[in-house]
């Protein structure tokens, strides 16, 4: 168990490092730099001469060789210092902590919705008494999965907020403004969950242990819940880490469409202004979040499937 944890932590560090490196490389390949963007943004107030631009570059350390900047940023990041925003001058950690609660709220709400929708659809789509109902329910997930998130968001705003005036279209105030973005974010995840869960539920029905349970005289409901659902949950849980990543990634689009403040929208803004310290910091912190979720999932897995620890320990 201890060696397993150590191995997983090393893996997590590797993931963080690669995310950082890829992100750094991509940002430096972009054909522009933050200082000129900053200068052109402030150009109306007066002209800026080349000497001042050079000064700013030196101030942010942008005039050093790329390799030096990379190592320098990495070294600071390792010590938990992600630098300050080129645009606002605020500390990146502070920016992240400011917007994190809103995104966590959104992701958590979307996650709960996705699980309820996905599990419900799969369960009733597999076990409903009438075959037309099963077919109808199981045709929903592929449809959801094919909807682009921004389109769903815009349609919900158009109908629910503008035409019917039921819920606010934008903003961060309370549960009323949370519902539409959460639904938008939840749909693709719910669709994936429903498809995987329905598939494994169907597979468990022909398992021999289901026959054994039926031969004990167990009711269909008992068989479904205690024998089918529990075993079918395992493949779905394996993908939970991927879905956590989906929710984080989806928040970029959803927060932008609904003009909510959050990690996603802050990242989008920082990319468009090439605010390198902010983008790098957010990428690392988001990957850290993603890695922690994945590790948590993997650590809970043996609780649900007793075979896992055993298999990991077997010689190969």
């Amino acid at each position, binding site marked *: 168990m201890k060696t397993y944890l150590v191995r997983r932590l090393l893996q997590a560090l590797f993931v963080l490092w690669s995310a950082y490196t890829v992100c750094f490389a991509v940002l430096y390949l972009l054909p522009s730099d933050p200082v000129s963007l900053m200068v052109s943004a402030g150009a109306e107030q007066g002209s800026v001469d080349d000497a001042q631009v050079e000064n700013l570059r030196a101030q942010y350390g942008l005039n050093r060789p790329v390799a030096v900047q990379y190592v320098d940023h990495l070294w600071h990041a390792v010590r938990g210092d992600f630098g300050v925003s080129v645009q606002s001058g605020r500390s990146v950690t502070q920016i992240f902590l400011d917007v994190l609660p809103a995104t966590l709220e959104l992701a958590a709400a979307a996650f709960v919705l996705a699980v309820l929708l996905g599990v419900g659809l799969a369960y009733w789509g597999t076990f409903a008494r009438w075959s037309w109902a099963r077919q109808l329910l199981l045709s929903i997930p592929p449809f959801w999965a094919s909807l682009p998130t921004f389109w769903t968001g815009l349609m919900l705003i158009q109908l629910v907020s503008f035409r019917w005036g039921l819920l606010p279209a934008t903003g961060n105030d309370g549960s009323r403004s949370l519902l539409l973005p959460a639904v938008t974010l939840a749909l693709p995840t719910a669709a994936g969950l429903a498809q995987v869960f329905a598939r494994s539920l169907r597979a468990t029905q*022909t*398992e*021999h*242990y289901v*026959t*054994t*349970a*039926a*031969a*004990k*005289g*167990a*009711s*269909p409901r*008992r068989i479904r819940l*205690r*024998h089918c659902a*529990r*075993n079918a949950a*395992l493949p779905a849980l394996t993908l939970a880490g991927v879905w956590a990543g989906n929710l984080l990634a989806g928040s970029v689009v959803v927060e932008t469409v609904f003009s909510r403040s959050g990690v996603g929208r802050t990242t989008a803004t920082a990319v468009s202004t090439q605010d390198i310290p902010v983008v790098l910091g957010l990428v690392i912190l988001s990957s850290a979040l993603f890695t922690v979720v994945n590790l948590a999932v993997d650590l809970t897995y043996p609780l*649900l*499937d*007793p*075979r896992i620890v*055993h298999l990991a*320990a*077997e*010689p190969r």
Partner: protein
Amino acid sequence: MTDSSDGVLLAVRGLRVSYHRGPTATEVVHDIDLDVRPGQVVALVGESGSGKSTTAHAVIGLLPTGGRIEAGSVRFAGVDLTALPAAGLRAYRGQEIALVPQDPTVSLNPVQRIGVQVAEVLRVHGLATRRSAPAAAVAALARAGLPDPELRARQYPHELSGGMRQRALIAIAFAAEPRLLIADEPTSALDVTIQRRILDQMGKMISERGTAVLLITHDLAVAADRADEIVVMSGGHVVERGTSRQILRDPSHPYTRRLISDAPGLALADVSAASTSPQTPTRTQHEKPQTTHTVQPRTAAQSETTIQASTAQQPDPPPQEPKPPEPTALLVVEGLVKDFPLPRTSTGRRSVRAVDDVSFAIGRGETFALVGESGSGKSTTARLALRLMDPTAGRIHLCGVDITDLRGAALRRLRRRMQVVYQNPYASLDPRFSVAEAIEQPLRLFGVGSRATRRSRVRELLSQVALPEHLLDRRPAELSGGQRQRVAIARALSLHPDLVVCDEPLSALDVTVQAQILDLLASLQTELGLSYLFITHDLAVVRTIADRIGVMRTGRLVEVATGEELFDNPRHEYTRELLDAIPGRLSGFSAR
């Protein structure tokens, strides 16, 4: 016939079952009558597809999807179960009629503790409370003969061996003290020794409680040992029924006669009773050496033989080996050892010795059988000999050449000379390959011949294994188990190997098909001068085919002898145990 009046517990009358798939329905059980009296063991015998399992499942309403009872009645203690609503039938399942399923490895829920699964049957029928259920489950496990029942109750299925899992399933079946037990091939997935212990345990519990049993089996020898009455099914019909003694001594239907002649255990009982039955294939030992000497040694790989041959001839036979390896020996293994590492613990590295100082030799055209239960190291020994695995110690010689350290291209060339036929024909053929592609693949991989010559070789191989040519384009899913195993044999023969390793090639097959495959292997051997290394847990199977038999236990070769010596005069205690476990011996029907 009247029912329920004359003390019949289960009376099946005019049962017809069909499987519906879309608009088409196929009737698989035609008009079956069946009676089981209290305390009676009735065996339903037939090969796969005979409808015996379908009949059994129809009795408790557990037909798979699409299965439907079309006509007839299933009266249990006077109540027609087919007329009951689902909830009414559930009250019978587990409590009045219990099922011991076929394959213990997949019949327990992998994510639930054993104790919970045993307790479930009591909880469902309100026979135990949440509090009393765990203790009741432990008691049920103890009654089923499971050692350390408290520990087992807390374990998960994957932590138990196949035999222990079957005992857990027996504990589930007996927990609610049912009046009728349906045992669906309860031991065909287990080793013969375990099979015997499990059947003994069931027999004991049945006689203590007076439970009636409907035993489903493809093995007439098992039925002969355990049943009072035998009902023989074929093609969905009952072809013959009677007391076990009647059926075995005086079978009237040709199908029953074939089942009797094909059951290896019964054939043995026949031989040991010195009967002159013409059905028993008798192969003399004298034919073998002739083939041995007529087969010319291969020309390839002879350059290195001179140095190594002396090592192979060294007069240093291991203690178990009755005769020193002949100079013409094809395969010689000496002092093979294989250790597997175990997960590291606080006490440091540990390992388990799967193969412990095993030595034997296989002559040209000879069949050497390794017999033992699962975990005895017989399959590992075969994998070492094939060089699919590296031994911890010991040497392996093929045609006098030391092949222990071969690597790369030389090892790849070696693969041509040793081929394998695996246990499970359902898993060892790629489902997307046609029969022709499967057989041709080794030829393609080694770049043998042109496309046209490979095709003609495939046809030749197909006729050698007695398969019709129209099967060439079929996929494995369209073939029967016996046909698949023939394809696997054809594939193994495609490169003209010297040695074919048969790793439990029969254990997934019905007795009748087993007999056919054994005949095929024997005729191929005389035709092609093959040597076989035959791995099996069932001594009865190798009696007719093996020239010499090695008995393995916990990694050691405890006894090596010719088939006759071993059966007539077993020297090791464990060999005697294996011999006693052969089904059909208890009945000793030919002596009756």
